[in-house]
């Protein structure tokens, strides 16, 4: 098949447009990296774009010598690990039970879960509830309330539904109970989908900030995202929420850039390896229904 001249022209323009879009997508990241390695004076005079000016790495020392930064960083790691573990246990068992088509009441239980996608209690009732449960200023306020993502649940359920029933029945005939089948047959053979779900959950918990901002008052409990938010709030200087006025001092742009860089570093480093799993996961989710 040969292209017409106008189609060839279109392809060239299309390719260039995509290069341009990619450049525009990457630019903000490159800008932050350049600022992280630049000196404050060049940033303030608006001379830093994607090439560092006044190259220095002392800002990294400044940020990394703040013990609170490391403490909050460690909190993020802990919250992410605990929350992901809880989420995986709940989501896997829920999805597995819901994937059994013969289960009486299955439609009702699916409906109960899916309805929460379209209607939720709202900010204030949730806030009142967490306070009433005494979870304020504890890790539980971060790791429990978002333990099941309905989207992830539906993806896993769709995966389990396609699981070979012959294999499960054979295992049952060999004497395994439902728990045994799930633990020793289904889970070991579902590594791909489980890895995808762990990624989805871990990234969302790593990136989360609002739960912590809302329910934690003590700085030593913050995850690193809240640490960063407080830096940003200090930088804009026009708003101090939650009595953080003391932190609202002028913070150098390169300090902010370095903190942003360090906060995202794990995701940026892992991204090339994890990306294909994410894509597979979201496609799996879209195939159902």
């Amino acid at each position, binding site marked *: 098949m040969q292209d017409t001249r106008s189609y060839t022209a279109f392809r060239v323009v*299309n390719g260039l447009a995509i290069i341009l*879009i990619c450049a525009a*997508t990457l*630019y903000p990241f490159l800008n932050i990296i350049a600022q992280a390695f630049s000196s404050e004076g060049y940033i303030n005079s608006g001379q830093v774009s994607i090439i560092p000016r006044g190259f220095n790495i002392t800002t990294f020392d400044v940020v990394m010598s703040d013990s609170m930064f490391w403490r909050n960083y460690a909190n993020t790691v802990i919250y992410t690990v605990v929350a992901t573990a809880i989420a995986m246990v709940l989501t896997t068992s829920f999805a597995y039970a819901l994937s059994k088509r013969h289960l009486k009441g299955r439609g009702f239980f699916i409906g*109960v879960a899916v309805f929460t996608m379209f209607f939720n209690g*709202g900010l204030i009732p949730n806030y009142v509830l967490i306070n009433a449960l005494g979870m304020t200023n504890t890790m539980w306020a971060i790791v429990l309330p978002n333990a099941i993502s309905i989207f992830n649940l539906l993806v896993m359920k769709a995966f389990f539904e396609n699981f070979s029933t012959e294999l499960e029945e054979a295992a049952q005939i060999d004497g395994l109970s*439902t728990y045994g089948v799930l633990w020793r047959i289904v889970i070991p053979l579902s590594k791909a989908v489980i890895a995808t779900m762990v990624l989805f959950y871990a990234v969302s918990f790593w990136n989360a900030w609002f739960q912590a901002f809302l329910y934690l008052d003590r700085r030593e409990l913050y995850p690193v995202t809240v640490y960063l938010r407080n830096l940003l709030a200090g930088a804009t200087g026009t708003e101090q929420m939650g009595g953080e006025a003391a932190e609202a001092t002028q913070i150098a742009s390169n300090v902010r850039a370095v903190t942003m860089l360090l906060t995202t570093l794990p995701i940026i480093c892992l991204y090339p390896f994890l990306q294909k799993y*994410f894509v597979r996961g979201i496609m799996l989710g879209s195939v159902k229904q």
Partner: protein
Amino acid sequence: MTVIGQTEGDTSASTRGSGAAPPPKRSAPSAPGGRTGTRATHTWRYALKKDWRLYSLLVLPLVFLLIFRYLPMAGNVIAFRRFRPGSSIFGDEWVGFHYIEMFINDPTFWRVFWNTVILGGLTLAICFPLPIILALMFNELRSNAFKRVAQSISYLPHFMSIVIVAGIVLQLTSLNGTFNQILGLFGAESIAFMQQPQWFRTIYVSSEVWQTVGWGTILYLAALTTIDPQLYEAARIDGANRWKQMWHVTLPGIAPTMVVLLILNVGTFMAVGFEKVLLLYNPLIYSTADIIATYVYRVGITSSNFSYATAIGLFEAIIGLILILSANGIARKMGGNSLW
């Protein structure tokens, strides 16, 4: 299957699932799977006995949903009751529509309502079609390596924390940021973007485009791969050029995906990115940036008017629910492609 363990040969596979449970009712063996048998196999008692292990897997997740999803829904009654901090989550005494009347007569509420509608409408109008266009553009690329790299780059912003995105936006729009550097090249005066209400909508929607467009293409690209190549061939034989092929084959091929995503987008139309606005806005630009959710946050959490804030939040949530139900209903009536 010829897998034979140390089991009694006459027990069907499905009843073996109950392990050590007492033998099933007399009618059960004739109904493997529990679907085709007599009335007795349809009772809850039978189902619970046979599948109690499966039901036990449901317990924790259902308790979770009950406490963290349905209890807050019920907690919305404090929109109609007076709530004092520290009292029951269902409030103290009935006050009827007191708080509803309060927000209907509140000029700030109407300002944030219209801000929400405008911001949501702009986001829907701009962020819904762009992924389709980008997916079609990706689809025309011949080089697979280039396509892969371009897609990977376009997904990247999706994985950033909203705090990082806000940081980037504040940085780019600051007085010494990139936008002002560009203005400087043209000799224009610097603009304090985040202090001028007229810029907020542009900034918000652009950052939303930056963050979501690449990721949004995934589903369309998946839909594109399912289109039968024979359709293109047939169209070519009929003399259709590239544009006509796109119009008559590609677009109808991804139409079901478009409808589903449009319903979802309409449903979340009022749920403008609360966290992003909260991170970006400041009192100088409230006139365009303040949305229902941030107003609820300030009234409820910052000023402790819990019942009043709940009433506003409930109003927003109900609009969202009505929107998604009607979008779904319309889609089902028109073409049969609906969410459920």
